[in-house]
């Protein structure tokens, strides 16, 4: 069987397209590369959706933590404390058990004039349930990062904004927010990389890989079990993830350049993600 045939069979196996049975005997290098790469679709899906959704919530959390009203500040403090202080692995288990306890035939929502039946089955599937956990988790970490950045917005910038007559939402949108983003961006890049790495946990916690549709680590582990040789499948996984990390650094670097476009050329800081604030 040629390698192209293998790619056609297994290239989209992780989302259920192509050959149903996974290779069992005489596993070739091409099969390992193809299937682990196919599993990477899930990692990218989880990371991308969680980061996009989490960006909004993390900014809200950062602002809420900075708010004067304890009704906003306290919940945000607790949210960040719980999600940053406990292991993601435990959070996956906890949420999975909570989702399975929801009634099987859906929740009845009484809206007064009509009753809605909310389906809850899909929450126990990894594609939705695990995404919710990852979204909440990354929001907490990024919220902490942006809160720190918000606190270190230079006072002079804000005073200058006042002097120019900026106030309220306009001041936030034109001055505070861009500066906060710029200051927090290197740490946020780091968070994005670590979140991408954390997506490999999904299929090793409670969430089942339905019909053997799993992520990259799921297939790497499958091959290591089948061939009893960890020295091939795991380095392939490492190769893919290093590429993914480099892609993230490149993309976030482009954004960072855009955020710093007003600075003189020589003073432009280069993006160097430092794991000082790791997850």
């Amino acid at each position: 069987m040629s390698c192209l045939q293998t790619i056609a069979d297994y290239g989209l196996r992780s989302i259920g397209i192509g050959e149903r049975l996974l290779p069992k005997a005489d596993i070739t290098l091409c099969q390992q590369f193809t299937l682990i790469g196919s599993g990477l679709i899930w990692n990218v899906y989880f990371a991308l959706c969680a980061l996009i959704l989490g960006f909004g919530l993390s900014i809200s959390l950062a602002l809420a933590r900075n708010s004067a009203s304890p009704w906003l500040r306290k919940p945000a403090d607790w949210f960040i404390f719980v999600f940053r202080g406990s292991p993601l692995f435990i959070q996956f288990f906890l949420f999975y058990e909570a989702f399975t306890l929801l009634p099987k035939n859906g929740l009845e929502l009484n809206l007064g004039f009509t009753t809605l039946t909310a389906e809850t089955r899909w929450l126990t599937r990894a594609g939705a349930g695990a995404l919710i956990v990852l979204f909440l988790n990354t929001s907490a970490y990024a919220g902490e990062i942006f809160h720190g950045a918000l606190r270190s917005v230079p006072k002079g910038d804000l005073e200058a904004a006042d002097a120019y007559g900026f106030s309220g939402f306009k001041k936030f949108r034109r001055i505070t927010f861009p500066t906060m983003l710029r200051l927090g961006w290197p740490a946020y890049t780091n968070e994005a990389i670590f979140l991408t790495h954390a997506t490999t946990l999904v299929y090793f916690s409670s969430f089942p890989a339905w019909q053997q549709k799993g992520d990259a680590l799921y297939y790497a582990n499958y091959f290591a079990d089948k061939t009893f040789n960890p020295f091939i499948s795991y380095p392939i996984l490492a190769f893919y993830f290093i590429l993914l990390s480099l892609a993230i650094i490149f993309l976030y670097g482009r954004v960072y350049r855009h955020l710093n476009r007003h600075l003189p050329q020589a003073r432009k800081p280069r993006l160097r993600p430092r794991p000082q604030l790791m997850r």
Partner: protein
Amino acid sequence: MFDFCADPKSLEGFQWLACYLTTGKHMLFYQSFVFVIVLMLITAPIALAVGFAGALASRSHIPPVRWLGVGYTSIVRGVPDIAFFLFMPLALDQGLEWVRHKVKCPDWTDAIRQGNDFVVCAEAKLPLSSSPQWVHEYYSIALGIAAFAFVFGAFAAFVMAGAMNAVPRAQMETAEAYGMTRRQATWRILVPQMWTYALPGLSNLWMILIKATPLLFLLGIEDVVFWARELGGRKTQAFDYPHPDWRLWYFLALLVFYLLLTKLSEIGFARLSRRLARGQATLAGMEGAKA
């Protein structure tokens, strides 16, 4: 545990709960919490030592040593840690058995990898198949610790290399002016001063180590996650203490345990950082001198 626990089916309310929470299996569950903490306390110094060696290696003047140090830290940072936790125990086990096989059975002619099998002679097996059960258990725990030390060593190396670079250049120049050799300057000037710069990163690393411990479950070790799943699952009337699916509550207990652990560590590190800042030429050090 208590006298009234003799017949669990007749108990109710508080007595039932008291008996339920003190069964033999629950005692094992509580022990696994202690086990997690002991494991972290063993892993942390090893990882710190590995990290220190890695940081020194990545500053070395001998290129191959430097490449080794830099390569080690960047590869571990670029790959998910879970992959290493799954990879390392298996790889270490096979590596050790391979070396022992080469040493102990030099006239063995068959290939070690036969298709999907990894075959070494009986004397090279690790642990020996004749050894008692506890040796097997401790061996798998030791492999887990090695995997943790490898991953966290790389992170620690990165943090400490950064801290070494953060020590003011003037300090090293002064050491050279006094005629110290490179080795002397490293050990007498650089190493004592780097800790205050390394502490924020290392305390962060300790938090990550705490949060990585439940992954031991994936290595087949009977840790807190294992017992939470075991005890929380639905128990039918065939058991002494039947109850519905309580895994949610057990995992909630684990969550609280980890929150406490991270909170206490945070407080501890804040104290340590104040202590280490004393006498340093930094803002924190000056504030410490005033107080």
